[in-house]
């Protein structure tokens, strides 16, 4: 679901240059500033208050209205939670790696050798946006039921998650790939005797800057919150565990502490990756 955020990401950078707010008439400027202040306050409250409530409930003691850190301690002790966190993180990592390994060589190959199929390729990559996860899972259930005879480990969910992550990873990577002159780079490398492996992983990939961390961030954010497919195929991942806890006890403190921890972790991931990405692009000058 989420985020077609990649869609916007591409066109955003060239945005700013056209506007010059300084040249506005003073009266309109004042009104505009007031408008902005009101808008940001209201929206800020709307987006912050549920998070504050989450924080408050994650510090709720056994009796309503008291404070306690027990819910946070329970993340480690509550049955199933810690294991599910481990699986979720492993899924995120494996999915990131798999989607990059699948997508990057193909994208570079198509860019250099088969540019005429790039439209069809783009269509395939964006197709999962138009096929809701719930539909995908209906079609997958028979396949997974067949291979379930061989007891499939939860980690194998990554096979489907790669498909879910495809559109976002594609958007991020194609922005990076289009920003460099891949043809010239590869011709230079090839004329110096590099093979295709070297061209892809040692020449083009390092030049794609923030595109790769972006693709990884979007993919892992997607995996960390994925619920639909795991639940329906009967795999016990973190969101499924939380969902089951919420059905058993609506007010379990561990629910709120784990949710908040997961959210904060995603925020951190975003910060970290954008920091790494900026350092990468600065290092190259």
């Amino acid at each position, binding site marked *: *679901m989420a985020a*077609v*955020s990649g869609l916007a*990401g591409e*066109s*955003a950078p060239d*945005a*700013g240059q*056209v*506007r010059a*707010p300084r040249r*506005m008439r003073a009266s309109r400027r004042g009104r505009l500033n007031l*408008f902005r202040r009101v808008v940001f306050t209201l*929206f800020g409250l*709307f*987006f912050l*208050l*549920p998070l504050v*409530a*989450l924080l*408050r409930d994650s510090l709720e003691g056994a009796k*309503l209205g008291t404070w306690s850190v027990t819910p946070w301690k329970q993340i480690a002790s509550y049955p199933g939670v810690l294991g599910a966190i481990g699986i979720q993180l492993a899924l995120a990592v494996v999915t990131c790696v798999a989607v990059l390994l*699948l*997508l990057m060589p*193909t994208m570079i*190959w*198509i860019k250099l050798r*088969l540019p005429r199929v790039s439209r069809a390729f783009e269509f*395939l990559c964006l*197709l999962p*946006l138009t*096929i*809701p996860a*719930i*539909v995908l899972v*209906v*079609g*997958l259930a*028979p*396949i997974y039921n067949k291979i379930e005879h061989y007891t499939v480990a939860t980690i194998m969910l990554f096979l489907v998650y*790669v*498909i879910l992550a*495809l559109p976002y990873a594609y958007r991020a990577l194609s922005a990076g790939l289009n920003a460099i002159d891949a043809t010239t780079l590869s011709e230079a490398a090839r004329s110096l005797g590099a093979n295709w492996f070297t061209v892809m992983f040692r020449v083009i990939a390092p030049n794609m800057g923030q595109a790769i961390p972006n693709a990884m961030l979007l993919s892992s954010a*997607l995996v960390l*919150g994925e*619920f*639909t497919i795991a*639940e*329906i195929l009967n795999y016990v991942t973190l*969101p499924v565990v*939380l*969902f089951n806890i*919420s*059905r058993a006890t*609506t007010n379990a403190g561990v629910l709120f502490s784990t*949710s908040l921890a997961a*959210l904060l972790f*995603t*925020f951190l991931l*975003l910060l970290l990756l954008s920091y790494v990405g900026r350092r990468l692009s600065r290092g190259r000058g």
Partner: protein
Amino acid sequence: MAAVAATNTTGARPERAGRRPPLAWLGTVPFLGYVGVFLLLPTAIVIWNSVRNTTGGFAFANLKVLGNSAVRTYFVGSVELSALSAVIGAVLGAILAYAIAAGNPDGIVRRISLAGSGVLAQFGGVTLAFAFFAALGPTSGFLLHASWYYDFPGGITLIYAYFQIPLMVLVFLPAVDGLKVQWREASESLGGSAWHYWRYVGGPLLAPAFIGATLLLFANALSAYATIQAWENQIAYTVPQQIYIAINSEVGLSNVNYADVLALGMVVLVAIIMTGYALLQRRAARWLR
């Protein structure tokens, strides 16, 4: 022997200039194979099963289930929720996008808003339902004990707005950024008021992007399942929830691959909407250069 091999390897070079032998297609095989097995095959299975009965014969009459009054209720519920949350998300998101665009393009406010939108647009899973439950739960809400929390579509629309508004900001901001200040100045120097500007210049320019983005939000809400399932799992209001029930209960409607038919209905609906989105996006792109 050696000579033949040599001509083969050197012969492989010039193809880059002109002819493309089948070799170039080999590079796409892993990708095509993967997408084939995990995306195209499941979709094909859904379509195939939806026109077959449980004993293996063809039964196009299956599709009549979509006209069934109980099934219609779920589609109406889905469309109602998606439309409401898309329109609210689009209007509020557009206002926020305008407020962001009016500020300093390199400013901290813009940077925080964009990064925040990126995260919150993804924040649609079960945790979102828990956060709103913590804030507005009917008996234990932190802010208020909202009796309407479990109302459909009112309560869940508010929750959906939490990821729809950020998504709108991400999709719509480039269009708002594309409004040139010269257009406004031209309008003002010709004596136009703010109303004239929005009625005759800004509004028509932004309309395709706005409608397109609204369609995208609609499709986004339509496919959403985790949040509504965690919000209220006893009653099925939407098609995805009903699909879940159909998969998990052995007894569906007799002799019909119920889940597959519902899924097919969703695919058709989303495909129509996304086509409209793509067309409008192309129309909007004209002014974004």
